[in-house]
């Protein structure tokens, strides 16, 4: 174990170095570029034995990842925003082929207008492609999540993305604890693919044309694998905690057990909210926070159980779904609570699009709002100018 100062990008690249995958195919894009640059320097300096493919686009990055993973290799990439969007076409092919490819994804607003800063629109638009999605609050979690994503993905045979928030995590340095190279090697283990393409003695055909008579049946294993992922995510999070002292679940409850009002947030915003919660608690307000870590698979039952006793909950979405009924996190949590006999008042705040800053004051105002939640509109746009 080492205690070092790293940015989120450096932390993710370090996890990739320690995993030492067979193939990395990647294309640079702000703010994930550094992950690719740092990894390329590992290759240049002989610190990894990875075959690195400096592709000409993210579409080719994900296409090459599919080829490499199908061939039987352990495969990773990194991207952001438009880069992830360029991969969208291939993402559901990766999950349908049950290929445990890992993306270090740095959340950045989708164009347009073009913007390079954080929101979650890129990752949220990829939510229905059969990929496991795990969000990180800081560089430490980014590092831990990349390692865990790999293990989870290979166990359930689904691809996974570990995400950080662009610039806020990706470019900010903080103290992190890393594992020794040997510990990582032991934790992730040797990869043995089930049906590698390169088995020339028993040739198999992958990616067949599947029409009305079979397509539906072949989507069901992805559904089942995602259910299985819920168990495996908890097992791996527990193992990580037992071995290295940092346990992970679907979410983190922060002063939530006796709370009356709470915020649900993804990523770096949760860190800011913790400061506000502590401050409010000092003032006698029963405020809490639920930091959601796993968005796919969605831990609906677990969230419902934890949120049910609260009076009012603000769901914070760093992207809009344009369905006119709130952001993706809000609508999924609303759906998760729908069958409860007694449920809290839910309010949606769409905030921070294109990297608009979210500070202590804004979060504090949400807790103030929650005291009279029944007077609030269901969907609110926080901090947007008229």
């Amino acid at each position: 174990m080492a205690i070092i100062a790293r940015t989120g990008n450096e932390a993710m690249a370090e996890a990739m170095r320690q995993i030492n995958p067979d193939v990395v195919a990647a294309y640079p894009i702000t703010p994930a570029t550094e992950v690719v640059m740092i990894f390329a320097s590992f290759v240049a300096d002989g610190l990894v034995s990875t075959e690195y493919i400096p592709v000409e686009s993210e579409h080719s990055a994900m296409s090459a990842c599919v080829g490499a993973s199908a061939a039987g290799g352990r495969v990773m990439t990194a991207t952001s925003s438009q880069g992830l969007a360029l991969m969208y076409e291939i993402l559901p092919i990766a999950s349908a082929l049950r290929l445990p490819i890992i993306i270090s994804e740095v959340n950045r607003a989708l164009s347009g207008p073009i913007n390079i800063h954080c929101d979650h629109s890129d990752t949220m638009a990829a939510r229905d492609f059969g990929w496991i999605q795990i969000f990180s609050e800081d560089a430490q979690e980014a590092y831990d999540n990349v390692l865990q994503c790999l293990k989870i993905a290979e166990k359930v045979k689904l691809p996974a993305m570990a995400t950080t928030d662009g610039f806020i995590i990706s470019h900010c340095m903080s103290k992190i604890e890393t594992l020794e190279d040997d510990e990582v090697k032991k934790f992730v283990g040797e990869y043995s693919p089930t049906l590698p393409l390169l088995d020339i003695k028993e040739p198999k055909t992958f990616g067949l044309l599947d029409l009305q008579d079979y397509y539906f049946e072949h989507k069901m294993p992805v559904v089942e694998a995602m259910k299985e992922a819920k168990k495996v995510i908890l097992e791996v999070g527990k193992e990580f905690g037992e071995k290295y002292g940092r346990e992970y679940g679907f979410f983190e409850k922060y002063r939530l057990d006796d709370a009356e009002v709470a915020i649900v947030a993804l990523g770096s915003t949760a860190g800011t909210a913790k400061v506000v919660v502590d401050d409010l608690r000092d003032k006698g307000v029963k405020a809490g926070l639920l930091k959601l870590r796993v968005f796919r698979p969605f831990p609906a039952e677990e969230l419902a159980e934890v949120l049910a006793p609260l009076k009012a909950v603000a769901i914070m979405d760093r992207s809009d779904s344009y369905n006119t009924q709130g952001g993706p996190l809000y609508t999924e949590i609303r759906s998760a609570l729908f069958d409860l006999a007694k449920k809290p008042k839910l309010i949606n705040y769409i905030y921070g699009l294109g990297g608009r800053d979210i500070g202590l004051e804004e979060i504090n105002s949400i807790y103030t709002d929650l005291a009279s939640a029944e007077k609030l509109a269901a969907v609110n746009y926080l901090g947007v100018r008229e």
Partner: protein
Amino acid sequence: MATLKDLSKKKELLTGGHRACAGCGATIVARQVMLASDKPIVVVAATGCLEVTTTIFPYSAWNVPFLHNAFENAAATLSGVTAAYEALKKKGKIKDDINFVAFGGDGGTYDIGLQSLSGAMERGHNLLYVCYNNQAYMNTGVQRSSATARAAHTTTEPAGKVKPGKDRFPKDLTGIMAAHNIPYVGQSVIGMVNNDLIKKAEKAFSINGPKFLNVFQPCRLGWAYKPEETLELGRLAADTCIWPLYEVVDGVWKLTYKPREKKPVTDFMFKQERFRHLKKPENKHIIDEIQNEVDRRWEELRKRCGDM
């Protein structure tokens, strides 16, 4: 080259029973290219005729490992396969020598997959990319591509009352690939008595690095001719110099076939219904235009190949 007799004894790597049209040229391209390999083969195919007709679940006609990913990314996908192969070979997890081949139609190669192809060729992976060029998107019902012949009828640039089919001549993809300065680029066709395609595929497999073969492939459905005329039309494409046969090895251009007597383009065109409208006297000038362009490109190629 192995004799035809020897080749006939080799195991069929693409079995019969697939759903390609009677007289399909694409499956001939795939079989001949694979026959030329003296090592095990791994195939990646772009979405297209060859892929859909041979892999309808639960059936597969492939006796070799086969991967289909999407339409525009066969080259990128195969580059990933070869990278994993290199990594696993270094670790001793794989010991076999393997030839890697991608097949894409002209849609997946000239058009939507051009960037992916260019990237893979520039990066220098050890693979062979084969374009089976039938001059349109045949799989989805004969839509035009940038490989479609001038004045050919397609469903997205049809011959109508005022417009006689495609406006433009096909782009020179083989030349574009040669401009990548890769070790081997070849242009071939099926139906040549000298086994041009098998010879070129053999040569390509013997070279380390990125290789590209552009194979002209008559399509009885989209070109509308009798199924038994596929090979004859291939030969006519070479004999009219509409599709000259040549290769570029380490930057050196060389003709691999020179017709004894160069035939008029109409010998090739008028066997096909896609050019039917050009038989009208008022369209004679288009035939002349095509003949002139074919002559110009042929003379240019001869110069490049030092044949004059």
